[in-house]
């Protein structure tokens, strides 16, 4: 990952939070917060998925690996899923993932799942502000750096493009 641009405001720790919001409820709520001009902390970056059921635990882990300090998952309220039950599937994965994250020393507040209905722009504001404050107290998420060989980097086995083949020989 390239870090060719310096931090614009170096003073003080500003958490970086990536939010995965479902298209129908939470993303819409987030738009509503905008049209209602609700001001909130600028630390989240929203990635839109169609349903919280699309949110893969791998996204959460990769987001932390890429340097985020927190991950916020947002879906429709229970029973309100546009696709009937994607949010429940998200919830179950999330609960299992959280148990793993706790073992890995990732603090509870860093990864959060919220049900936010399309009409709840104010909840986007509230949850964002709350989460930013909590993570500000925790500081950077310090994952252990993955070591690499000192020589030219080896083919990264978990990188999607470079493997691929790996068929039976």
């Amino acid at each position, binding site marked *: 990952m390239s870090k060719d641009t310096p931090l614009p405001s170096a003073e003080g720790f500003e958490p970086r939070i990536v939010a995965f919001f479902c298209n129908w409820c939470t993303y819409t709520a987030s738009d509503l917060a905008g049209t209602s001009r609700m001001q909130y902390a600028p630390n989240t970056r929203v990635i839109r998925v169609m349903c919280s059921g699309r949110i893969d635990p791998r996204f959460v*882990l990769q987001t932390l690996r890429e340097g985020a300090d927190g991950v916020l998952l947002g879906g429709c309220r229970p029973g309100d899923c546009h696709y009937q039950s994607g949010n429940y599937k998200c919830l179950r994965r999330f609960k*299992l*993932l959280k148990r793993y994250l706790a073992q*890995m*020393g990732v603090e509870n507040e860093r990864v959060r799942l919220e049900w936010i209905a399309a009409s709840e722009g104010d909840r986007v504001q509230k949850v964002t502000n709350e989460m930013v404050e909590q993570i500000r107290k925790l500081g950077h998420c310090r*994952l*252990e750096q993955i070591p690499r060989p000192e020589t030219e980097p080896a*083919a990264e086995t978990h990188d999607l493009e470079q493997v691929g083949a790996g068929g039976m*020989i």
Partner: protein
Amino acid sequence: MSKPKAGFYWCASCGGCEESVVDLAEDILGVVEAIDFVFFPVAMDFKREDVEAMEDGEMTVCFINGAIRSSEQREMAELLRRKSQVLIAYGSCSYQGGIPGLANLCSREEIFKFVYHDSPSTDNPQGTRPQVRFDAPEGELELPSLDKEVKSLDQVVEVDYYIPGCAPPTALLKAAVEALLSGDMPPKGSVIAPDTALCDDCPRIDTKPAEPLITEFKRPWQIQIDHEKCLLAQGLLCLGPATRGGCDHACIDGNMPCSGCMGPVSRVRDQGAAIISALGSLLNHDDPDEIDKALDGIPDPAGTFYRYGIPHSTLYARCGITAGNGES
């Protein structure tokens, strides 16, 4: 024409990988006929000096099993890398960190503290701990130092191929040797094993219902395991759906669930997360409390879903285990 030279070395491992070579049985005769083993500490009396004396790239191939945790292992890995044309990470530990990789859930200090102080079987009233340097009557001794974390081989040196498994199935070893001898190797970086998950050739797949099949998770000792039925459908944590096949479903045939030793298929970045997602999705509860209750049946998610691959996983290690000098 001289035979191609090969090495077979072990780092942080259990010796099971060597067993897999022995498992070649009479086929091993064909191997030693075609290949000249020039370094194989378990089986033959070559020393490090013998390797150091080799030309760079003198070995056609070197298999290294075991994870990397000590300065000695690192040095050997670097040395063998230099001396071999093709370096193969052999077995789960070398490929992904393996069972020794579970140590990445603890700091070195925690491990030392337990092993040299707190373990019930420890009797160490002086609190002695191993030292890198030690003044013995015969002169100063130097021991390898223990790294703060466990690494897979490719986190230390460049690796050309991977043969997964704990221990690797002999069929894969044979296939790899044959490919090497014929020069028909897959693209660099490949995992030499089929690239579909175990379910693909699981003999029980037809008994797996296509429905949210898990209401509670059980441990193998808790139930009378049906010999025919899909183990997941019996509530056992079978990692088959997220684990590369190629093992000839040995565990399944032994009526034990897959514990994931072959690692993920190539499209999956993180084996544990993949199974977390799959199993979580299939849990047949909507009520948060019911979900929690069911998940209590998995007391150690990291150890269950990442049993063979914590160092190779996205998170690599528990946060903060390398903080401080950890010296003792």
